C-alpha cells in the first residue's frame, strides 16, 4: 500500500518536472486558506517580475501568470531555465472578485478574495 502510494507520488513529481522542463513554465507552490470573511491564496514565485504579474478571475477560476527569470545549474554546464510561473486554481462558489486585493512580498504573492455569502448572527436567549 505504502509502496503503491510512493510510486504514485514519484510518478506525479516526475510528470510535473517533465512538464516544467518542456514548457519552461513553473507551477508555483501554493496554499489556499479559508477564513470566515475571505479566502487567502498564497504562492511562492521568487524571481517574478513584480510589475508584470497578472491575476485574472473568470467564473470560479483564478489564473496567475508571472514572467520570471529562473535559471539553475544543470548537466553539462547547461542551466535549466523557465520564463514564467503559471497557476490556475478553482475557488469555492462564494468567492467574490469585488474587493479582491493582492500583495507581493519576498517572492510570495498573496491574494485575498472576499466571500460574498452574508452570515447572520443568531442571538442566544
Amino acid at each position, binding site marked *: 500500500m505504502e509502496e503503491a502510494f510512493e510510486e504514485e*507520488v514519484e510518478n506525479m*513529481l516526475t510528470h510535473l518536472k517533465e512538464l516544467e522542463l518542456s514548457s519552461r513554465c513553473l507551477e508555483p*507552490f501554493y496554499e489556499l486558506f479559508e477564513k470566515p470573511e475571505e479566502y487567502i491564496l498564497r504562492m*511562492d514565485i*521568487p*524571481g517574478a517580475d513584480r510589475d508584470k504579474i497578472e491575476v485574472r478571475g473568470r467564473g470560479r477560476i483564478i489564473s496567475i501568470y508571472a514572467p520570471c527569470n*529562473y535559471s*539553475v545549474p544543470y548537466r553539462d554546464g547547461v542551466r535549466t531555465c523557465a520564463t514564467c510561473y503559471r497557476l490556475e486554481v478553482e475557488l469555492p462558489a462564494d468567492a467574490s472578485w469585488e474587493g479582491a486585493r493582492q500583495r507581493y*512580498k519576498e517572492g*510570495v504573492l498573496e491574494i485575498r478574495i472576499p466571500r460574498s455569502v452574508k452570515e447572520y448572527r443568531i442571538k442566544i436567549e
Partner: protein
Amino acid sequence: MSGSVAPYVFEKKRVEQGAPVIEGLPEVGLVGTITAAYIASSLGGDAVGYIEIPDLPPIVTVLESRILEPCRLYSVSVEQRKLLLLYSDVPVPPRSMWSIANSVTEIASTIKSPVISVGGIPEPDRLDIEKPKVYVLSNDEELVRMALATDYVQRFENGYLTGVKAAILKSAAKRDVRVLLALVQSHMNYPDPGAAAEVVTFLNKLLGMSIPVAPLLEQAEQLKMQMRDLMRRTSTNLSKMPIGLQLESPPGYIK
C-alpha cells in the same frame, strides 16, 4: 526500528573533538538546509563523511563532476573553531528518521560534541513577520542558559515536535548527548532564507562567530529558486508526518 543506526562514515582525524554538530536536514521551510549549505559554502567546508539514508533507492549526487553521497558531513573552520555540518540533498523519508537520528547522536557521542539542531517551526502568518523569532529547547540546562544569554532567542515552552528533531532528542537521551534545538518561525512549504538568516545570526552569537548574513539575504530569491525541487520533495515527505501537530498545543497539566 527506533534502535537501528543508519550506516555512516567520517574521517575522525579531520573532525575536531568537541566540535558542535550542526544538523540541518530538509524539513519545514528548508531552514536547516539553507543554514547548513550557506555556512558550508561561505566558509569553504570540506566533505569529511556521510550518512547513508537506509530507505532510499541508490542515489548519488554529482556536483562539479564529483560523485557524492546525498547526505553529507562537512567540516568547517571558523575563527579558531571547527563545526561539523550535516546537510542533505534529499529529504529523509519518515521511516528512516529514527536511524538517521541515531547516527547523528552516535557521531556526536564519538567526538564528544553537542548537537545543535536547526530548523523551522511552521508559522501561518510568516508573511507579516519582519523578524522571525528563534526558539530554543535543550536537554541540557547549561546549553539553554548559553542560548538565552545571547538575548536573541526565547525558550520553547509548549508544543509538539515531530520528525528528525524529535527523534534526535529521544536518541540523545539514550547516548547522553547534549542537544540544543534552535527553531525559527518559518514558511512551511516555501524555502525561507530570511528565517535561515535569523538562525545564522543566532549561531554567530552563540558560538562567537561573525558569518555575514547580508549575502544570504541578497541571494534569497535565487536560493528559493535553486531549492524548489528539494522543497517540493520535502513537502511531499512532510505530508506523511503529523506536521500539523507543530501548530497545536498539548493539553497540559490539570492543576
